C-alpha cells in the first residue's frame, strides 16, 4: 500500500514531519534553557504567540519580519541549488541598506527630485547593485582562485559591516541624531500596507522576487542548468553546462535578493527609515535567511512559508522580551537548535530504516529456523 503513494508526496510528507521534529526540538531546548535560567517557559511562549499571530497587529509584525528574511532565504537557497554554501547574505544586506541610504543622502544634498518614487526605485537599484558587487567578489574568488565561499563570504560580511559603519559615522550620518544615518525622505519611502503598522510594500517586493526565483529555477533553461550544476557538476559540465557560470549566476541572484532585503528595510520600516548604530536594525537578518532556507527545503515556495514562521519567532521575541523579560536572543538559540536538528540526516528515515532492518533481520532468522522464527516475530 505504501508503494502506491506517489514518491513526491511521500518525500514532502517526510520533509514536513522532519521539520516538525526539528521545530519541536528547538522549542523544547529553548524551554529547558529558559527554565534553567529562572524564566517561566509557558509564559514566555504564550507572549511569543500573542505578539506574533494572535491579533492582526501582531500578524503584520510577523509579516514585516518575514519580508527581509524571505529574500535572504532565497540567497542561501539559490546557492545550495548551485552547489554553494553562500552565507554572504548578511554583508550583502548591509550593502543593500547602504545603497538606499546613499540615495537618501543624495536627496538631502541637493538632488531633491529623489524625494519621490523615483528615489525609491533608485535606492532599490543602487542597493541591489552594491550587494551584487559583494556577491560578484565571492563568485570571482570562488571560480578564479578556488576560495571556498564559506570563508570568502564571512570575510566579505565583516568588510561590509565596517564599511557601512564607516559610512554611518563619517559620511551619511544624521547631523541631528548621532544614533543613525540620514532618513529616507517621505516621498521615497515604501508605502505601508496598513497604516499604524511596520508592514510596508517591501513584502510585495519579497514575494515578487521569490516567485521570480521559482520561475527562474523551475521554468527556465538557466535555472535548469543551475540546478544541474549543483546536483552533479561533473555530469553537468559533460553535458555542456558551464558550472562556473552557473555559480556566478547563483551568487548574483542571491546578492540581488539580499540587497533588496537591505534596501527594503531602510525604505520601508518605520520609525527609522535609516541605518542605526552598529547596524542594529539590520544585524542578523542575513543569517536568519539560512534558517528560513533550511526549513523551507531550499525551495522558493517552501521559503515563503518558512519566512512567515521565522518572522513570527522574531516578532514574538520582542513581545517575549517586553512582557516575560526573556532576552530576545532566546529566539536565535531556538533557531540554532532547529538547524542542528535539521542537520540530522532524515530523522524519520532513520527511524523507518531501523524498523526495516529489524524486519530484515527477522526474515533472515525466519529463513534459518522456519518454525521458531515465524512464531517469535509474527
Amino acid at each position, binding site marked *: 500500500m505504501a508503494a502506491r503513494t506517489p514518491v513526491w508526496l511521500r518525500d514532502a510528507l517526510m520533509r514536513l514531519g522532519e521539520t516538525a521534529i526539528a521545530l519541536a526540538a528547538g522549542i523544547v531546548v529553548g524551554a529547558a534553557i529558559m527554565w534553567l*535560567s529562572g524564566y517561566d517557559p509557558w509564559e514566555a511562549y504564550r507572549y511569543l504567540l500573542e505578539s506574533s499571530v494572535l491579533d492582526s497587529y501582531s500578524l503584520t509584525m510577523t509579516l514585516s519580519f518575514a519580508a527581509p528574511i524571505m529574500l535572504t532565504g532565497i540567497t542561501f537557497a539559490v546557492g545550495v541549488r548551485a552547489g554553494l554554501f553562500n552565507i554572504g547574505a548578511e554583508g550583502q544586506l548591509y550593502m543593500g541598506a547602504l545603497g538606499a541610504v546613499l540615495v537618501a543622502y543624495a536627496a538631502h544634498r541637493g538632488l531633491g527630485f529623489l524625494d519621490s518614487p523615483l528615489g525609491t526605485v533608485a535606492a532599490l537599484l543602487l542597493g541591489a547593485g552594491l550587494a551584487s558587487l559583494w556577491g560578484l567578489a565571492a563568485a570571482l574568488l570562488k571560480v578564479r582562485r578556488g576560495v571556498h565561499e564559506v570563508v570568502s563570504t564571512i570575510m566579505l560580511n565583516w568588510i561590509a559591516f565596517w564599511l557601512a559603519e564607516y559610512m554611518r559615522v563619517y559620511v551619511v550620518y544624521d547631523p541631528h541624531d548621532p544614533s543613525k544615518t540620514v532618513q529616507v525622505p517621505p516621498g521615497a519611502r515604501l508605502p505601508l500596507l496598513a497604516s499604524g503598522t511596520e508592514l510596508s510594500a517591501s513584502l510585495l517586493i519579497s514575494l515578487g522576487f521569490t516567485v521570480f526565483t521559482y520561475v527562474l529555477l523551475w521554468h527556465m533553461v538557466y535555472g535548469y542548468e543551475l540546478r544541474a550544476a549543483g546536483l552533479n557538476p561533473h555530469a553537468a559540465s559533460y553535458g555542456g553546462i558551464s558550472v562556473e557560470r552557473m555559480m556566478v549566476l547563483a551568487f548574483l541572484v542571491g546578492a540581488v535578493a539580499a540587497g533588496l532585503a537591505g534596501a527594503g528595510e531602510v525604505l520601508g520600516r518605520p520609525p527609522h527609515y535609516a541605518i542605526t548604530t552598529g547596524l542594529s536594525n539590520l544585524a542578523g537578518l542575513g543569517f536568519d535567511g539560512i534558517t528560513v532556507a533550511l526549513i523551507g527545503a531550499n525551495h522558493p515556495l517552501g521559503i515563503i512559508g518558512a519566512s512567515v514562521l521565522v518572522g513570527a519567532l522574531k516578532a514574538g521575541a520582542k513581545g517575549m522580551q517586553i512582557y516575560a523579560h526573556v532576552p530576545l536572543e532566546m529566539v536565535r538559540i531556538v533557531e*540554532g537548535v532547529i538547524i542542528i536538528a535539521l542537520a540530522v540526516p532524515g530523522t524519520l528515515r532513520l527511524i523507518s530504516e531501523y524498523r526495516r532492518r529489524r524486519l530484515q533481520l527477522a526474515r533472515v532468522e525466519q529463513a534459518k529456523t522456519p518454525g521458531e522464527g515465524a512464531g517469535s516475530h509474527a
Partner: protein
Amino acid sequence: MPEPGILLDFIRGVLYAMTPILLTAVGEIVAERAGVVNIGLEGIIMLGALAGAMASEAAGSPWAGLAAGLLVGAALGLLHAVLTVYLKGDHIIPGVGVNTLAYGLVPYMIIVYWHTAGQHQVPEYARVPHIAGISPVTVAAIAIAVATWYVLFRTSLGLKLRAVGENPEAADTVGVRVERLQTAAVVYGGMLAGLAGAFMSIDWLSTVTKEIAAGRGFISLALVVFSNWNPLLALGGATLFGFFDTLREWVKVLPGVKGLVPDTLLNTIPYIVTLAAVAGVLHRVRPPSHVGMPYRRE
C-alpha cells in the same frame, strides 16, 4: 627606530593575536586531514569563551576556565562527529547551527548570568597568570602545533589519520577504524577551538562580548587552507595574521594616523588580509581528497 619597550609590546600583541587562530586552525587541520570539515568553529570559540569565563569565576581558578573551554569544545566536537561521521550527514549545516546557537546563547547568558547587556569584564582573579608577560596558553599553543605536526607526519597514528582523509575505503580495507579516528580528530579540533575561546575571554581580552570571536573561527578555516593543512606552516600563517591584527590596533592610536584614517576602516584589515592570503596562495595547495564528504561503507 622605535623604542625597545614599544617593540616588545608589539611582539606581545602579535603573540596574543596569533594564539586563538593558531589553536583553532591546528585543531581543524587534524579534523580535515581525517576528512571532516567543521565550520562551527566560530560558535565553539564563542561558547568556549563563555564557559571559560563562567567556570573561571565560579571556581576562582583560571585553570578551571581553560578546562571548561576544552570541555565545551570537546562536547561540540563530539556532536559534530555524531552527525557527520556516524549519521553520515552534511558537514556544513551542523556548523551553521552551532554558530547560530552561539550567536544567541552568548548574549543571552551575558544578560541572565552577569545581568549586564553586551559586555562582561572578567575580574582579575579569574585571569590566566603570565610569566614574563607571556601567556602559558601561547606557549602551549606553539607546543601543540609542533607536537601535532610530529604526530601527523612522523607517527603511524598520523599516517592512518591522513589515510582516512585521503581514501577512507583503502584505510578501511587495511583495518583502520575510520569512524573512530574521525571522531577523535573532530573532538580534538573542537577542544582546541574551545580552548582558544577560553583564552580570549579569561586571558587576552579579559572580557566576554557577543562579538568576541569576530570571525576568527572563519579566519582559522582560511588559515587551514593557507597553511596547506600543515600545522608548522599554520604557525607561520597565524603569526602573519596576528601581525596584521595587532598592527590594526596600533595604527589606530598612532599619533600621526589617529583621526586621519577612521578606525572603522582599519577594522577591515584582518578580513582583507585573510581574503588576499587565501586568494593568493590557493593554486599551490591541495586539500585532503575526501574532505567534507561522508564516508559510507559499500
